[in-house]
């Protein structure tokens, strides 16, 4: 069954220079393995497309039922350089809530 990520997880995002980070946190511990399986750097790369120019890294925090993603080259230069309205990547996490994942 396909569901939007926002059904099983919440997110928070921010910036470090031209890199955005997205923390993805499972509401329930039993959904953490689903995050591990479904929410991969490759899936994010496809989902965000041209918005992310560089690599995407993933780190695991099993103690928090969470994943942390670094999206390099994702903020149009970042901080003060960027011309985007969301130069600090504040809404990247919310965008990801729409990504469809499989619960099966």
């Amino acid at each position, binding site marked *: 069954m396909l569901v939007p990520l926002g059904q099983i997880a*919440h*997110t*928070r995002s*921010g*910036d*470090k*220079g*031209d*890199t955005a*980070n997205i*923390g993805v*946190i499972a*509401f329930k511990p039993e959904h953490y393995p689903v995050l591990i399986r479904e929410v991969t750097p490759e899936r994010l790369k496809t*989902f*965000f*497309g*041209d*918005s992310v120019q560089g690599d995407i890294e993933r*780190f*695991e*925090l*099993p*103690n*928090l039922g*969470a994943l*942390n993603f*670094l999206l390099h080259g994702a903020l*149009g*230069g970042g*901080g*003060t*350089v960027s*011309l*985007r*309205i*969301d130069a600090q990547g504040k*809404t990247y*996490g*919310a*965008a*990801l809530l*729409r*990504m469809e994942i499989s619960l099966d």
Partner: protein
Amino acid sequence: MIRIANGQGFWGDWLEAPVRLVEQGPIDYLILDYLAEVTMSILQKQRQTDPSLGYARDFPPLIGRLAKRLKERKIKVVANAGGVNPVACAKAVLAAAPGLKVAVVLGDDVYSRIDDFLAKGYFMRDMDTGEPISTIRDRIQSANAYIGAFPLAEALDTGADIVIAGRSTDTALALAPMVQRFGWGPDDSNKLAAGTIAGHIVECGAQCSGGNCQVDWQNIPDLANVGYPIIEAEPDGTFVITKHAGTGGRVHSDTVKEQLLYELGNPKQYITPDCVADFTSIHLEDIGPDRVRVSGITGRPKPPTLKLSISYANGWKAIGTLVYSWPQALEKAEAADRIVRSRLTSLGLNYEEIYTEFFGVNACHGGTAAVVTDPPEVQLRIGVRDASKKAVDRFTRELIPLVLNGPPGATGFGEGRPPVREIVAYWSALIPRDEIQTRVEVVTC
């Protein structure tokens, strides 16, 4: 146990927050984080214009407002309000609150030492791009080393009521009282990591106590009176995150988790001047209403280097907007964008970057946004960036004429031409720790 409250997540955060933290319940330390990366360059410019400036100007009047209660209740304040001029900040505090003892931490400002560092063979390569600092040497506007909790703890040792630092790390503000009161040493890596993570949780103010929280946000109570976070720190390195009773907001493992993930890199290597903290060791437990206990934290010893925060001039930019109304609002905005670009090209202007967003359609979420059909209005938002100020200035004159000579239904130009802003970019590099010698001074009028 000591209570450490953060009343300011950045310079410009809610002015009432620190006052309420002092008035609405028990705290031992009030910490205030004022400095973002680009703040230092703004302060450096202010100091060049007036040698008595260059610090967070909100801070002295705040201390003046709180002085009586701070003294009565023996609350100590630790703040990085000093910017590039901590001594001037201290003098302004003394003028506003004459009865308080004020100590400053100096030595983080290395603006005048860059050439010395270069002569010693430090390339100060940018930590993102690897380029040597020589490529931007003549454009540097400020340079500071991030300093940790131990110099701040030394300042608390003087018995000061108010400790003012320049570019200390955000987390050091919270860690310093623990180091000073609990007698933690530089080798107590696990405890230093715990205090550092406590600092990370509270460093953005209410962002851990219900602000900007996705979980059940509609039901988070009374954000109008949101309580800012308080660390109840124990000598063994465990702590509880809470807020004053009767305040709005929420402290829960969900709100704390979101903040733990905020602006995080590699969770096993959260590097500070004090230690390397491991976020995968954190254990959270909801132990009561608005109370989250944090334990289990481990860390490793501090690195041999300190991070430099350097700002430099990097060209100019301007961002202009126009609003197009229904019908065909998006099509009109897209046509206007093509017209602007065509006119700029006719003028022979080629920018380093020109970037368009359609606010109401795709500005926040780009290509991932749901398709909107026939929206009631769309804001066209065009930005340009270039080394030439003149070219950027010319762009700012191209939007308003469209109201009369472009597609129909444009409005929202009341603010006039957009301002041309200098871009102050950020450069981070490493320097051997030995090069940075901090010192503490008690400042008198």
